[in-house]
């Protein structure tokens, strides 16, 4: 895993290997992001299931809530 560091003071940019701690953090970041994606997907699926159960469309549901 690489990290691209751009020092804005000196203008120097270097690409270096991530440290072990940075790799660990990067993996944690990605896991959290994946969880967020899954959470949204789950919420969408639950929403679709509820609409199906109610027998109405998403637009009709919006109309009800408006």
């Amino acid at each position, binding site marked *: 895993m*690489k990290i691209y560091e751009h*020092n804005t*003071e000196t203008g120097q940019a270097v690409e270096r290997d991530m440290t072990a701690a940075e790799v660990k953090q990067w993996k944690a970041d990605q896991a959290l992001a994946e969880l967020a994606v899954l959470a949204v997907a789950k919420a969408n699926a639950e929403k679709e299931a509820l609409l199906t159960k109610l027998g109405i469309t998403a637009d009709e549901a919006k109309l009800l809530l408006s």
Partner: protein
Amino acid sequence: MTNPTSNYGWVLPTSTDLVTDLPADFEVALQGVDTTTKALNPSTTLGDIEFRSATANTNTRLPIGTTGQVLAVSGGVPAWTTTADVTPLTTKGDLFTFTTVDARLGVGTNGQVLTADSTAATGLAWATPTSGSMTSIASGSFPTGSGTLSLTSISGAYTHLQLHCIAWNGSGNNTVIARLNGDTGANYTFSNGGFTTGSARASGLGSQTSFNLCSGDSAISGNNKNITVLDIPFYTNATTGKIVNASTGFLDATSARAQTTMNGYYSGTNAAVTQIDFIYGSNWSGGTYVLYGVK
């Protein structure tokens, strides 16, 4: 010849004058000439000049002026005066200004602008613009060998930071996060809104370890050219956390056009922002970035 003479009235001997009277007659005539000549030429000193006075056949002496003076008209007659038209300019870029006399204002430094300044002797001053300017602090291309851009040692000389990430893309479906000052603590609160996967989106999260710029969505890569603009106003403010706002245009996981905004609050420390990490889930395959300092 008329007697007395027509122009100066000199009295000459006449044909009936006795020879014995001639010395006295010439004395009268030549004294007249002498008096007239002196009246017409009153100069006494090197550089003196004369001009016609109000009295006929009488000139007025004007002593020479001082170095640099020029001849002008004052009160209807010639007079030496110190000129106001001698340039005070000496150097490239000088401006001709005025205090109570003509004055020189030297050129400012690169990027400065001329501004009114009532405290300055000339009423003018060169000043560095304090508002309305954007300065590129750092720029480059996203490296293809990594997915984390870390902008470090950011100057505190501005009031606002704006990061432009243009046409960035990579491989796989991944999200994008941002982090300040390398802080991985649970100090990030944000909400996301936008339109993705065919519907409007609104969500919010607290106590996160980074800002997720498109939470719940994966910015798809392929040939897509995503764009993100991230703002951090008042980033040197040392008494509160920091507001971070971002907007991203991308293709979502269904390859549909999508847009998301992120409004965030960083509460980890009140220190100025000196580092921004822009992190993608895989290696970039293109795009450029520019970090601007805004005044």
